């Protein structure tokens, strides 16, 4: 599936499952795919809300069950430090993820109560980097200082920071300049002309298409990208090219 202009869209920031306090639909795979169709989004990297808002191990299993048979969706597991034995040790976790076809790992250090740049999650980050699985992180989960520290100490780890807002460019520009393995998604890269400015300054491969649905309206990222002042080639790279390479996705 492509837009009428031939642009493929691969959403790196989508979720299935219900949410407790937002009126955002039933969280089903069928509803997600229907929404993707409305916006000509061909494929998506998805996590499960149960892995975020309930229990990562349970949510990660649910995710695989629910998206099985839907080839447009790629699984993204949620990780935790194994300090309390809630999840498998890092090497086993990553091995299981890879075996299950998981394409990336999300972390919620803010909501799950650990420090992103601390020693507890470091072995997991090392294992994720070794396996060349991208790391997905919402900006409200960690500080820029922690993100930069993690990125600088693991150059092979590709980090995609999502949900930026419109007030971040002063800090973001410094981090992107120093940490070449940090990327951002489009779900709310809200600065006026910020997308064009970032692409010109740091290169097109630093920005990936992501919607943040179902909490965010996918219309935001779709309209922002397709109505950008970038040429079609750059739009294709942001729409799916760079993400496809990072995720090892050859589904089209």
């Amino acid at each position, binding site marked *: 599936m492509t837009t009428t202009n031939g642009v493929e869209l691969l959403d790196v920031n989508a979720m299935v499952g219900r949410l407790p*306090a937002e009126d*955002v639909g039933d969280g089903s795979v069928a509803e997600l795919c229907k929404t993707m169709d409305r916006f000509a989004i061909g494929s998506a990297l998805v996590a499960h809300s149960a892995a975020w808002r309930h229990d990562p191990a349970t949510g990660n299993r649910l995710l695989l069950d629910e998206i099985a048979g839907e080839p447009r969706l790629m699984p993204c597991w949620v990780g935790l430090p194994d300090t309390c034995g809630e999840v498998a040790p890092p090497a086993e976790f990553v091995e299981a993820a890879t075996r299950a076809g998981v394409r990336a790992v999300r972390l919620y250090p803010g909501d799950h109560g650990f420090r992103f740049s601390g020693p507890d999650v470091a072995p997991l980050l090392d294992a994720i980097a070794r396996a060349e699985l991208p790391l997905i992180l919402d900006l409200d989960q960690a500080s820029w200082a922690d993100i930069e520290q993690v990125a600088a100490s693991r150059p092979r780890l590709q980090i995609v920071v999502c949900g930026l807002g419109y*007030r971040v460019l002063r800090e973001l520009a410094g981090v992107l300049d120093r940490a070449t393995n940090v990327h951002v998604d489009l779900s709310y890269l*809200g600065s006026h002309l910020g997308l064009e*400015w970032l692409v010109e300054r740091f290169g097109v491969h630093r920005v990936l298409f992501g919607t943040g649905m179902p909490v965010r309206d996918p219309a935001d990222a779709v309209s922002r990208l*397709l*109505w950008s002042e970038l040429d079609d080639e750059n739009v294709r790279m942001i729409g799916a090219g760079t993400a496809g390479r990072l995720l090892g996705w050859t589904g089209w």
Partner: protein
Amino acid sequence: MTDVLTGPVLSRQPLVGVDVIDAHAHVGGYSRFFTPDPTPEAMVRVMDRCGVRLAVLSATHAIELDVRRGNEETAAAVRRYPDRLRGYIVLNPHQDLEAELARWADEPGMIGIKLHPDLHGYPLDGGRYAPVWEYAERTGMPVLTHTWSGSDVDDPALLASVFERHPEVRVLAGHSGAVADGFPRVIELATRYPNLYLEICGSFFTGRWLARMVGELGAHRVIYGSDFPFIDLRYSIGRVLFAELPLADRRMVLGTAFRALVDKEDL
């Protein structure tokens, strides 16, 4: 299935044959964050890219610091692009409110009043705003106010006492209270006060909320705005274009509803 509003986005072409008015815009930079190019020139370029005919703006200089200098910047932008830009007169209860209103009242292109109780540290229902409500009620000039649900100074609920005192004044609740858990309350408020219009730009708004507002109030009570160049125009407009609403309702929100609030010759 695409239509005249969604098809152009998916084919990377501007809207054609649709009258879009952005009722909540600014111009100029802002101290708290960097904006790559907040000039009128860049704003009109973005409007052209998307097919937005007109934007009604207030200078950031006026809302965050100095209304006199800021309103001059607004007027300069409007004079430079008389076919594309209109202005709001920003009024601050701490900065000669009545003198500033008199200064701009007859300026062509200044078609509304903008209040920002949050940045100006003064409650929306406070007495110093009385000349604003009296003037707006007398002239029919619409008032756009920043609102934020839960705020001490500009929770939309504070508008209730304004409407009790000035029932004819027409108010656009900027951001519709901004946060999702306040949207149901601002919809309920609008059912009680028919001259309250919900303007929909903001970080937490969605097409799903738009459909709910239109369903409960009618599309003529919901006004499209983007907040650009605070927030890129292309985030907020997509929510309207792709909303699961009839085409006529989306057109109404995009421009017809605001046109009904302003004299035809001013637009």
